[in-house]
């Protein structure tokens, strides 16, 4: 950052985005570290109507994925890659995103608290990595969004990465659950 000329108007924007990425890295590494060092919890919980909390997680994860697909479609419309748009897309994108993250929170908290960062097999390792990465990218995207000076490619890249991570998370958990236990509640 010290190499940027003080008169360069993009220097501040660039350094702000570098900070956003650093914060995202800290979030991802922080979650992974918590998952690795925290003594795993010892609690079985359930929500009435579901056979197990694994089932609850599988469905919350699926809800998050559906909302993420809404995110992808509304983002494409906002950027004019799909026809039909308008201001309503901005609102829909904003709130589907918040809802997706809200749906992911209890799932992530349960994973981090009960299991932690694990590498017992490829699925579990991939899921652990993608989970930490997802919240890191989410942090980068929120910080980039809050600053109009962030580079134009920042939001599509962060959004695409978040969508990809969530898809990997869903495939390594909810899809595995449904394939193993059947599509049950």
């Amino acid at each position, binding site marked *: 950052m010290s190499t940027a000329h003080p008169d360069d108007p993009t220097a501040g924007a660039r350094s702000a985005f570098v900070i956003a990425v650093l914060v995202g890295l800290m*979030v991802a590494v922080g979650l992974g570290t*918590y998952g690795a060092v*925290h003594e*795993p*919890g*010892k*609690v*079985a*919980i*359930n*929500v*009435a*109507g579901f*056979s*197990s*909390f*694994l089932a*609850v997680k599988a469905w*919350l994860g699926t809800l998050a994925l559906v909302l993420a697909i809404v995110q992808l479609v509304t983002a494409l419309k906002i950027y004019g890659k799909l026809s039909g748009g308008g201001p309503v897309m901005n609102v829909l994108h*904003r709130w589907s*995103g*918040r809802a997706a*993250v*809200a*749906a992911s*929170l*209890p799932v*992530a*908290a*349960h994973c*981090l*608290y*009960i*299991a*932690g960062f*694990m590498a*017992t*097999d490829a699925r*579990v390792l991939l899921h652990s990595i993608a989970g930490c990465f997802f*919240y890191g990218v*989410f*942090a980068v*995207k*929120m*910080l980039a*969004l*809050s*600053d*109009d000076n962030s580079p134009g490619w920042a939001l599509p890249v962060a959004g695409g990465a978040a969508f990809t991570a969530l898809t990997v998370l869903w495939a390594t958990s909810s899809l595995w659950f449904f394939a*193993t*236990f059947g599509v*049950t509640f």
Partner: protein
Amino acid sequence: MKRRGPLITLVLTLGALVVILSLNDALIPNQPGAAEAPAPAPAASSADATGDDAAGAAEFPDEAVYAGKDASGKVAVAVAIKGDRAVAYVCDGKSFESWMTGVVDGGRVTLESNRGPTIDARFNGKRVTGVAADGDVQYAFDLEKADPPAGLYREESSDTTIGWIVLPDGRQVGIKNTDGTLTPAPRLDPEADTAELVTGATR
């Protein structure tokens, strides 16, 4: 220009995660009755996290074995039912094992070992969900039916007992106990070896 909405979203999200995790640590010390503990996340609850007593009214079949890994993937659990009697085995395939015996009461099975570990689980008509407790450590599990060649196997000689859990997908987790020294079990060939298929009535 700074836009505050995304920052608020970010702070609320990360804050909620930190609060949930800290509350878990603060409010749920390792109590054994944890199966009735409330859901850690308000967003997860449809307000009534009442456990599964009411819903799990199904009764166990007369004879069956259920097996699987716990939620963390650290240990394998097998529960064998026969009539009103049950045998369970929990092991990590490396250095921890516990045999338990217990009783079946409708759709509920409770087991204990004379060394301490216990299991409390319920049958939902298809799978067996519950908790294995070993002192402060608890393993939450959700087991599926394990028909042969999957199941629970045991081989005993004068100084050695080997236990194997063969999961429905064929993976094996087992412990060889030689006079109290625990080592990973050798691979079991369920078709050929002489190991005994454990039922709920095995003692």
